[in-house]
């Protein structure tokens, strides 16, 4: 029998992370879904020396790297799409504080697939022939790099291709639109590599914009791409991807995307940002106040809101979620 897995954000970070952890976030999209709020809590708890596995850079990685908490990172894309370069990550890379190992977007997804399947390696027909294959930030003197995407021979055709190393992150904090208390999840918008990541990671924490009754999952089982059996914990957190967007729930906060990235371009700006938007903001009410209640309402007025229509009847109110959370806490204590 599946059991309820709701815990608070702070408890999830305490229980599942430590300094030096290989930490993956998902969906790790630069403008869309990502568990940005998990990164804020990692900083509040002072986690450092992280090895970040991010399919793409997000404002989360930008913040973590800008704050000096990331020693190693592996990414397919390290910008913020139309919002430009990721200044925090960029500063950390240029100063040498963060060693950033480059792959492509397909490569990162395939490496997660390889981890999920427990394959020894994944055949690489992309990234080969470019400097992504030949140069390694993790092994700078290894040129052409042999430890990153080594050349292997296709045993059938004799063709030379590459080999991607599989990824098995110690923990993944995966942003989802809807989760039930057991850990079944529905993702609205592209799932990017969350399907593979949920199976590659050794521990999985879901960060959900809303909690729904399990009856919702029974109505749409084909849409439940992350089933509870592979999930360790569920965190309810509205606006978990802010300032990024979550289809159905809220749009990207254009002004904050820009001002946050601007702050992260300097040490001083990053300190200001942490003081204004991270430190001491330790519950959901304080968090929504910090975004601004008017802004919350404005961002919630999204052209994608209709995507949520089929599911609304099962969404639990904050009070109902709090009651469930109290039950879990009692069970744990008992």
């Amino acid at each position, binding site marked *: 029998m599946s059991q309820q897995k709701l815990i608070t954000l702070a408890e999830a970070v305490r229980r599942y992370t430590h300094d030096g952890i290989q930490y993956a976030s998902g969906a790790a*999209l630069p403008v*869309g879904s990502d568990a940005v709020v998990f990164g804020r809590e990692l900083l509040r708890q002072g986690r450092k020396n992280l090895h970040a596995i991010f399919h*793409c*850079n997000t404002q989360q990685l930008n913040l973590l790297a800008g704050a000096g908490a990331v020693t190693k990172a592996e990414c397919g894309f390290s910008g913020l799409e139309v919002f430009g370069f990721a200044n925090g990550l960029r500063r950390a890379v240029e100063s040498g504080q963060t060693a950033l190992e480059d792959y*492509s*977007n397909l490569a990162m997804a395939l490496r997660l697939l390889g981890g999920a399947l427990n394959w020894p390696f994944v055949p690489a*027909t992309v*990234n080969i022939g*470019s400097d992504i294959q030949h140069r390694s930030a993790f092994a700078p003197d290894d040129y052409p790099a042999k430890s990153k995407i080594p050349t292997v021979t296709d045993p059938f055709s004799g063709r030379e291709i590459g080999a991607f190393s599989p990824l098995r992150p110690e923990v993944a904090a995966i942003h989802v639109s809807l989760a039930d208390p057991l850990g079944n999840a529905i993702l609205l918008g592209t799932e990017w590599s969350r399907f593979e990541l949920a199976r590659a990671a050794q521990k999985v924490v879901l960060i959900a914009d809303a909690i729904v009754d399990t009856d919702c999952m029974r109505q749409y089982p084909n849409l439940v791409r992350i089933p509870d059996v592979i999930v360790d914990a569920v965190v309810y957190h509205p606006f978990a991807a802010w300032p990024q967007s979550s289809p159905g729930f809220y749009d990207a906060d254009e002004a904050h995307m820009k001002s946050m990235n601007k702050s992260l371009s300097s040490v001083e700006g990053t300190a200001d940002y942490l003081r204004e938007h991270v430190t001491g903001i330790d519950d959901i009410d304080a968090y929504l106040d910090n975004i601004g209640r008017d802004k919350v309402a404005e961002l919630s007025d999204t052209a994608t809101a209709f*995507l949520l229509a089929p599911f609304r009847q099962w969404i639990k109110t904050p009070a109902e979620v709090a009651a469930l959370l109290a039950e879990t806490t009692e069970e744990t204590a008992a």
Partner: protein
Amino acid sequence: MNAPQTSTQLEQQPYTRQEMMAIATGRELHDGELAIFGVGLSMLAGYFAQAHHAPRLRSMTEGGVYGATPVGGLPWGIECNRISANATSFTNAIDALGFLVASGRCDVGIIGAAQVDKFGNVNTTGIWDGDIGDSYRLPKTRLTGAGGANDIACGAGRVVIMVTHEPKRFADKVSYISSPGYLDGGAARERYGFVGGGPSAIVTTLGILRPDPVTKEFFLDAYYAFSSVEEIRAATGWDLKVSPNVRVVPEPTQEELAALRQVDATGALRKR
């Protein structure tokens, strides 16, 4: 005195260089093709083609968003709400970049570049002082990395590269190959067995470059009504060869501009 342009002056300009680039790129896409768009301006070019001359273009973003048309202006990204508001399918990275591109099914992709060289190799990873050398070293300026462009450059039937035409962006040899063009020219791509054919055009703010069928070195094929061969050669960091049949690209039609501006609702391409 450099007074800011008034709105009247802006209205008098029939179109911007960026708009010309987007329209020229869109003209490279044909009805019925399966096309993948990268982030930013390439998306506007692709959705323009769909709105104007290629209504049956089968489009997707590398985010795995299918069937969408942008709502409210330039999409912030390959996954954003502006293209999630009317999509017909959301899938994933392995689907879009793998099943449909690495498989060889995708006819054409559009990618951007921070730097491109005479063999169509693209650098979006970083800028170094001089050669990186025989060991990896820190870039002077870190850029955005390859994203899905490497996968598109390896797998799409052909690739259109969109890039602002400036000397610093047009290098004899890029300092880092993020996405392969023709590598060191000739048949070099064949060593890697890529299923995709490589870049068919570099469309810039000044003109259109195409690869020599044998050497794969890019030459000037066409310039715009507002540019010239001399200006383009001066803005190119290698000794750019010019086609004996170099031509002028037809200016945008009213219909093309109307279709583009419908997609580019917030005027991202008119800002410079």
